[in-house]
């Protein structure tokens, strides 16, 4: 499972690079990133990490809520006997 986590984070790394490249790199007339492109890549990456944190929080809330409901339903079924 640890192995899986490493693989997932490398996958996410690759996807983040691809996304920010596509959104920020505007042309291929130079070999080096322009200042504007470089800034855009940094902001893109930072923003994406914040989005991941926020969505991850909502995600965990949802699943823990679902498990509580399942537990409550199981308890109710037990009482109903």
């Amino acid at each position: 499972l640890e192995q899986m986590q490493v693989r997932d984070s490398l996958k996410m790394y690759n996807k983040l690079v691809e996304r920010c490249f596509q959104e920020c790199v505007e042309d291929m007339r130079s070999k080096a990133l322009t200042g504007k492109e470089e800034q855009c890549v940094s902001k893109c990456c930072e923003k994406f990490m914040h989005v991941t944190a926020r969505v991850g929080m909502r995600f965990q809330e949802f699943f823990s809520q679902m498990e509580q409901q399942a537990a409550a339903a199981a308890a109710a079924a037990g009482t109903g006997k």
Partner: protein
Amino acid sequence: MADASEAERNMVAAAALSMATTELEYRVSLLNSMVSTCHERCAARPYKEGQLSVGENSCLDRCCAKYWQVVAIVGQLLGSQKQ
């Protein structure tokens, strides 16, 4: 006899581990789609700030809420079709 039951227990444990892995993979891939889709929809462009604004944060919350609803509708339809 003891051997057989141990082998059985091992098989049950292996099956449980494999199911848990599949479930985990499913959740990871669901989370990734949500992050990617909601980033697409809510992150203001061009990127001027690395932080999320108040508006972006509430957009993300609504995006997640709607995403779960789509998950539920699709799950129900896929489930009903199987039977």
